[in-house]
């Protein structure tokens, strides 16, 4: 343990490259500091980030006065703008919050009141006749509904990739496959100068540590001598994705009215053109258990049959489960300890995607106040233009100009999602390339369609093997390091 400035240390290491950690790294990359973004997994956004309901929330129903309410509102506005500039698929479908019981109906005025308190004023009650006019396939028995016109759906995979891409291009060192196993403070108590993190890929030295470790944030907090004010209790949510042929069945996000008994199940379009049904909510102990269960799937199909009977007539394309990093607290656990040079962004249960840019902005501000010198870099930061994988805009296979310039954009490999050879090639050669098939799926949607690989899995596997064996992707994949920072 040495005192004094360490020339080899980064200014900040962010632990956790989920949507929140990636947003923080991106935010910090705009300043004249050196930043490392480390994650135990082999890709960004593989924890809570990758498996959620993919909704860009307005925050109309947050707890008024909470940090979550404020950052959600701010983050949502920032992300709406960022997504437009970065080409992240977003569709402003609006949401309809549907009451099916008298109890739920009675809750609507307080939900409207809450939206007002959260500074969101566009909620209005709509007549049941209008509800059925707008959603003719809604199951019978709806009693009342609120319209939240600004709720949107977003691509939860492109978002953290865009943040990480921007960060890496601005000089952030992305260290994947790097699990933090221990931490040691440098300098004496009261005169702490930095941290030495032991990881599965060597040590990382940094003056500041940001804990954005999501499901593991309480353990990282303990490692860094945090105040231990929270414990992660994973809450599993199972979801069912229906075939794209179901997409015309609905136009808005159909939200449930939360009651004391249940938070309820939503039905929502996805930006890829599927329909999502879920989530369940089950507190579990295992932080890695993203398995679906017979009971969970059965409860979803039962709820789905009530909300939209015709939905259940369509094929299921995928089922999955995500773990939300819930704590014993209702609000975010965001704090900065100047003396210990430690920042924590935890307990971001299910609004992390929507609030990510707000959280990052807030945390950077707190760190600046705590003594981290934040001098803006020269030149203006611009978001990267991400490959477009949504259904509302134009994909490469639909773009005659792109195909004319490069016939690989006319070579459709994945027929269900119409992913072309050109897109796969681009993803493999991108700034933050995929480490495996799942990573490629998140970047291109390859094999995420209805056949789940019946037609293209073998071809895609061969393409990946070919590139791994020395194709163009292997040559450009060095921008992401898996090792010790210099």
């Amino acid at each position: 343990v040495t005192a004094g400035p360490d020339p080899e240390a980064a200014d900040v290491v962010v632990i956790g490259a989920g949507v929140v950690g990636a947003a923080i790294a991106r935010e910090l990359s705009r300043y004249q500091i050196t930043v490392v973004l480390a994650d135990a997994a082999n890709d960004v956004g593989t924890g809570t980030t990758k498996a959620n309901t993919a909704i860009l929330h307005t925050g109309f129903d947050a707890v008024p006065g909470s940090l979550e309410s404020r950052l959600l509102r701010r983050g949502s506005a920032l992300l709406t703008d960022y997504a437009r500039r970065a080409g992240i698929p977003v569709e402003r479908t609006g949401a309809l919050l549907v009451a099916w019981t008298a109890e739920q109906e009675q809750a609507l005025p307080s939900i409207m009141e809450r939206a007002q308190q959260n500074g969101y004023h566009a909620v209005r009650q709509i007549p049941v006749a209008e509800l059925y006019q707008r959603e003719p396939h809604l199951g019978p028995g709806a009693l009342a509904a609120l319209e939240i016109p600004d709720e949107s759906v977003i691509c939860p995979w492109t978002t953290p990739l865009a943040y990480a891409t921007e960060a890496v291009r601005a000089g952030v060192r992305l260290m994947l496959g790097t699990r933090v196993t221990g931490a040691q403070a440098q300098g004496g108590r009261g005169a702490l100068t930095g941290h030495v993190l032991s990881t599965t890929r060597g040590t990382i030295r940094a003056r500041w540590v940001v804990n954005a470790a999501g499901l593991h944030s309480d353990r990282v907090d303990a490692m860094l001598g945090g105040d231990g004010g929270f414990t992660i209790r994973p809450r599993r949510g199972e979801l069912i994705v229906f075939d794209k042929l179901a997409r015309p069945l609905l136009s808005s996000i159909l939200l449930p009215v939360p009651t004391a008994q249940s938070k309820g199940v939503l039905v929502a379009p996805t930006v890829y053109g599927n329909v999502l049904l879920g989530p369940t909510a089950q507190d579990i102990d295992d932080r890695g258990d993203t398995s679906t269960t017979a009971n969970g799937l059965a409860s979803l199909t039962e709820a789905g049959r009530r909300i939209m009977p015709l939905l259940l007539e369509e094929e299921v394309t995928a089922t999955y489960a995500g773990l939300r990093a819930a704590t014993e607290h209702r609000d975010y656990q965001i704090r900065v300890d100047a003396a210990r040079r430690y920042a924590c962004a935890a307990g971001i249960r299910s609004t992390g995607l929507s609030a990510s840019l707000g959280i990052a902005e807030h945390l950077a501000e707190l760190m600046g106040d705590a003594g981290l010198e934040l001098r803006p870099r020269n030149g203006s930061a611009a978001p990267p233009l991400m490959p477009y994988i949504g259904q509302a805009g134009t994909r490469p296979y639909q773009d005659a100009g792109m195909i004319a310039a490069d016939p690989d954009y006319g070579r459709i490999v994945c027929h269900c999602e119409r992913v072309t050879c050109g897109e796969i090639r681009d993803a493999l050669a991108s700034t933050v390339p995929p480490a495996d098939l799942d990573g490629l799926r998140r970047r291109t949607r390859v094999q995420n369609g209805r056949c789940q690989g019946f037609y293209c899995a073998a071809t895609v596997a061969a393409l990946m093997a070919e590139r791994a064996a020395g194709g163009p992707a292997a040559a450009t994949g060095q921008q992401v390091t898996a090792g010790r920072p210099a």
Partner: protein
Amino acid sequence: MNVDVLIVGAGPAGLAAAAELRRLAAGQVLVADREQQPGGVPRHSAHTGYGTRDLHRVLTGPAYARRYAAAATAAGAEIRAGTTVTGWAGNGRATLTGPSGIETVSARAVLLATGCRERPRPARLVPGDRPTGVMTTGELQQRVYLHGERLPGRALVVGAEHVSFSAVVTLAHAGADVVALVTELPRQQSYAAFALAALARWRVPVWTSTALRRVDGRDRLTAVDVADVRTGAVRRVECDTLVFTGDWIPDHELARAAGIAIDPGTRGPAVDTSLETSARNVFAAGNLVHAAETADVAALDGVHAARHIAAALRCREPAAAPGAPDHASGPPYRVPLAVEPPLAWISPNAIRFNASAGAGPPCRAPTSPPGTDPPGAPPTSSPDAGAALSPGAVPVPPPRGRFLLRSHVFQHRATLEVHQGNRVLARQRARLIPGRPVHLDAAWLARVRPSGGLVLVALAHG
């Protein structure tokens, strides 16, 4: 580009139709297929047994695929592989995408021959983890036969129908040790000889009345839970590969995109005995309308559809612009056909009546292509809505002179009864095995009254 016939899908049905259309001088025929090579599923079915009914010889899948592709090309059809029909541009125009660009093709008639696929694991709602090592037979065959992959370790096959035994053969070829085939049904559904041969050669047991309950493995597949459906007893089976076989669903996306009516039983486009869909001059053939039959059955469908397409084009009024809708004539005259449970479906789904008899399919009115019929048009038209029926109207026989059915249940000696109202048109003995074809001879068609309403096929009681 303008063609006379656009065929979507270069599998056995599409290629056989292309060759037949050219033989009948039906004009310019374009076959588009999204795969890099024509041939369809047989391309990656390395086992033998192809061609018995149509070519009267026994070939391997790839040889069969090559033969049909060569025949279609030799007959003068243009096959465009690596080309996807991505949708309809209205008025019978289809949008094609390939490496050479995006093109709109106008066709006077369209044949959908997009085949079928196996229902993958998510669609079967099997709970558990999402590890690698879980696949369908289609994926397995392509991995092994097209890309030469090896699959060492223990494998479990879900299903016990023909394709399941085919998966056993493929797995053995790839070096896997097949633990068992599992089926929730009380017995296997393949031909006894085929099953016995496979079981004897590779010593693979069939676990009947057994359901797959859970898949385990955070990264790679490690094990599954299977349950005895009678006792509920669950046991764990370690394995490295899990293959979901059978449980076919038609690839009906393009049909639905065109607003073509879907048969609730087959889940493919509803077709009449001429294989025409609810959209005029749009036909459907092969495993898109009966998932899944053997390749030769699909090919003979293609020939059948080609003859009716050729007739439709031959009779078209020369003055009509290609693809233009024609409102002068009503929909064709059809009598709906359905089954009662425990029968699952029947294909085709309606009996077509043509105005006159004669050698070959008769002339009929020009019809409108996809995109011009309202979405959700009924699969069959009521006699009132139909064209006026001439006194000499004759029913069009289905492909191969028989209807295809499926059953949900095993029944060794069943009697199929064909009704129209109170009249029994025919009785036929049948052996019912889920997933296996039941053939219903169409000799009773002459007894169908065009105005008599729905024809229903049910099991005779007692």
